[in-house]
């Protein structure tokens, strides 16, 4: 099995005007292809920070991070951008869809930036929207659909480029139970089809559905546990 994420002794410091926050204090972890990993922990422990570093949205202050075998430490901005485009799909807590673009165009973004042909893009986008059940809202704008639907579009956008790794930050935080469950179901489905998923969540109901839970506290990994297959089936 291939190792998708390999982190060694990752530190992250935020330099404020007066204060310095040491958000990650030596995190090491490995994530294999096809895994579904949940990251949990109390508010402010550094979950989102870890995810942004993993998604190359931000660099670590210290430590080594290899993504799909590529050492990311000395990459230039544009190279990081390219790798992100090719290997990572990111789902934000607050959706982050562009209001001036239609659902279709939002989802098409990663492929557009990859420079794919229009026909290829169309096929892939339709397929992704199909997966999340949003094909019928293709020509809508983000502000014309509900929060749950927006999250599903965001997921479609994350998976349209067939990335090695899908990063999900609190996918259910803004949603009610019903919508939250649906999104969770979708993620599990994707994982089953082979996507590697890392998800940040508070919700123990959802974290229990992962293969593995990584618990953070004050920027350190304090516990890691495998979830037994049986427990997952039950949920």
């Amino acid at each position, binding site marked *: 099995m291939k190792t998708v994420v390999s982190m060694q002794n990752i530190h992250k410091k935020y330099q404020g005007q007066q204060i310095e926050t040491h958000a990650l204090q030596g995190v090491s972890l490995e994530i294999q292809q096809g895994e579904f990993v949940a990251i949990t922990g109390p508010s402010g422990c550094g979950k*989102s920070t870890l995810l942004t570093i993993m998604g190359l949205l931000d660099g670590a202050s210290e430590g080594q991070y290899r993504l799909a075998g590529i050492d990311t430490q000395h990459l230039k901005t544009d190279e990081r951008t390219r790798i992100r485009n090719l290997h990572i799909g990111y789902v934000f807590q607050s959706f*982050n869809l562009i*209001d001036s673009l239609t659902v279709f165009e939002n989802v098409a973004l990663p492929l557009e*930036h990859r420079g794919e042909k229009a026909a290829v893009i169309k096929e892939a986008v339709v397929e992704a929207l199909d997966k999340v059940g949003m094909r019928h809202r293709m020509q809508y704008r983000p502000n014309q659909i509900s929060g749950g639907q927006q999250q599903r579009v965001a997921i479609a956008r994350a998976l349209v480029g067939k990335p090695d790794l899908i990063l999900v930050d609190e996918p259910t935080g803004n949603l009610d139970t019903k919508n939250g469950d649906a999104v969770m179901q979708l993620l599990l489905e994707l994982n089953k089809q082979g996507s590697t998923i890392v998800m940040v969540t508070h919700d123990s109901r959802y974290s229990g559905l992962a293969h593995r839970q990584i618990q953070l506290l004050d920027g350190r990994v304090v516990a890691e546990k495998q979830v037994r297959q049986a427990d997952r089936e039950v949920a």
Partner: protein
Amino acid sequence: MSLYRGSLRRGLIRLFSEPRLSLPLMLTLGLTLAAVLTVLSIAQTLLFQPLPGVKQEQQLYQLDVRLQFNDEMNVSFLSDRRRFAHLQQRFAGLGDWAQVVNQDSQAEVEGQQYQVTLLNATSGATDVIGLPLLLGEGTSADNAKEGVWISASLWRAVFGERSNLQGETIRIGGRDWPVFGVLGDFTSMDIEGNSSLIREQVWRFAPLQESLLNNESLSLGTTQLNLLRAPGGQVPDNRQLEDWYLTYLDTQISEPRAREFILSKPHSVSVQSYRDFFVGDSGKLVSLLIVAMVSLLVMACLNLLNMFIAHYQGRSKEFSVQLCMGASTRRLRLLVFLENLPMFMLASVTGLLGAAWLIRVLPDLAGDSLPLLDKINLDSLSLLVAMLLVMLINLLFASVSLLHVQQQALTDNLNSSGKGTPAQQKQGLNRMLMVLQLTIACTLMTAAMTSVYKSYQDVYQYPGYEMVNAYEISLAYKDEAWQQSLYDFESYSGSELQQLRSALADRLRKLEPQAVVDVESLPLSQSLTMRAYPDPETGESRMYLPRQWGRGYLESFHIPLLAGADLTGPQNGSREVLVDLDYARQLEGVEYWQNLVGKEIKLGNDSDDIFRVAGIVGNTRPVLGGLLNSTPPVIYFADVNADANGSDQPRLQMVVLMPEGQTLTREQLVPILSDLDPRLGEIGLESMQQRWQTMTAESRLNMYVVLGMAVLTLALAAIGVSGLSQMNAAQKRYELAVRMATGARQNRLLVLLLKDATLMLSAGLGLGLFGSVLGYQYLTGLIDQAPAFNWPTSLLVNVILAVTMLLSVVLPGWRVIRADPMQVLREL
């Protein structure tokens, strides 16, 4: 691909959907671009367009030796053609020589009068210049002196371009001249002072060497063309010219006092290419204009940039998402570039249209202060420049607008909630741009206001006499010989001239005027004679402005008599004069000027140069509108002959003062004056008001144009600051709302906004003051006529700017505060 196409499409839609962005962009960028393009076109024309009517201009040189009389006045030593001929003899081998002198004149053909420019030139001068001969003989013909050549425009106006001019004559200066030929219109001549070069021209030619037979005239004049066409490119250098000058003084001017007098004046020699001479100060003026216009463009850009940054800050999330989805910054920049392309294209179209219009109205605006006006046009180069400039600005905007969407800020942007604007957005850039803009505004406005102040003074400062309802009436002499004899014998009392004048005065009294003043001209004068004489005591040369006195002159124009008595009249033959305060002070010192009353002054070395000062009158300015900033002191002579404009008066002139509110027309004059004397012709009439209008027209126009520029600058700065302030207030809406919710009163909030702005304003204005002082110093170094820097103006500009800026901060801020900021809280 489709992303790009989408951007372009959105950009097109945005033209209409976001007028808050597209309208200011189109207007400010378009208009300033128009100004820049116009000035660039002018510059391009001045520097590169071939001079019309001049062939192979790189071979043509202008030579001059000039004497400096005072700060305001320098005269040409070569004005006497004899000297030019002498110079030509010395350097004859270098090429062909020509001299041209212009003069405003009247021509008459079959009873019809035409305003013309009379060009007195050396034989063959037009061949030296390269002016085409359209019809008739060449201008170097042996009998050239016997006739005249006319310009194409005059040919059209008078003879309807008829090709047979055999036997046609033109009456000029009381003589009929046969027309020998037709030349192209000559427009490539820079005219100084009051006269003008019009296209209706009459040329007279005389062989250059002939003038060597004349005596040295001991006179000095103003500008003319002293041309040398040197095909070999070899011209006398400054030292050779200087050598010639000194030799000439030594060998040709035998009167030692005259030589001393001339030598006492600082002189300068110059040999320059004809284009340099022709373009002259306009070149500097244009480069200054370029600086001013580019500054305006920069200001406009800074404003727009601020707006753009604000706009794109509002959309930073969108771009962060794009970045996150794998768009490179280069690609984002391209997207923004494309998105803004339609707007910028529209702005450049506005700019081009504006420039085309400006160039069309330019002749009305600039009058004859700019050469080659009719050659200025928008060509493909300007088009290219406009496009390039706009694309460059667009590119710059695209880059700067995205500066805040950096990798570092990415997570912040993405993690912030969708509502409101992220608090961490940096305003540093906006502020810096603002300070820069204020600095430019301050510098530009100081320069502009200084110039406006000077124009204002030139035009509106009290000239020492009232603008009363007075008219200058004139009659043309039709008979040159008679005119000559009139002035030759004028000094005898009861002379024919005096009889003529009193007959004229009698006729004019039939109009029931308030007064008829027996002088040639109004105190506001179109042309002046200045005299210089060596002070008998110190030997130093003094200048004065001779003016004619007439009975009732002082009262009519409210010129105060400060000491002594008014003159009594020309009849008593006494050699009495009035002098003005300046003259009295020059002689007796600032305090004891009154002592000059009753003393004798010597205006030369002859016995008739001695006059007794009867009284001292207030200072007057005979010329308004900045044509001559300071004139020498005035001496009023009672006797026409004594020293006033006397002998070469081209017309018989007299001044009448009409009762208040009563206008005098030519129709009233014709029946009264037409049978005064058969040897008098066309009747002229000009009121003091009219003269004031024409004399000050250019200054007033200048004033308004520059004032307009200052106002534009102020408006740009105000727009910029208010935009920023509005943005600032809008961004602080949340904070303001929370403060209000917790009990802050509205004016407290205003103070909060002001506190923020004050720092920026003081920085901008402080730097601006500094910049304007420095900038102005540079400017005065560049242009001689630039008015002196004055602190009051500069401070005034700063106060105006400060007040405007504070208002621009307070008003939009107040609007946000008034518009229920609590709404923000409910929205969340």
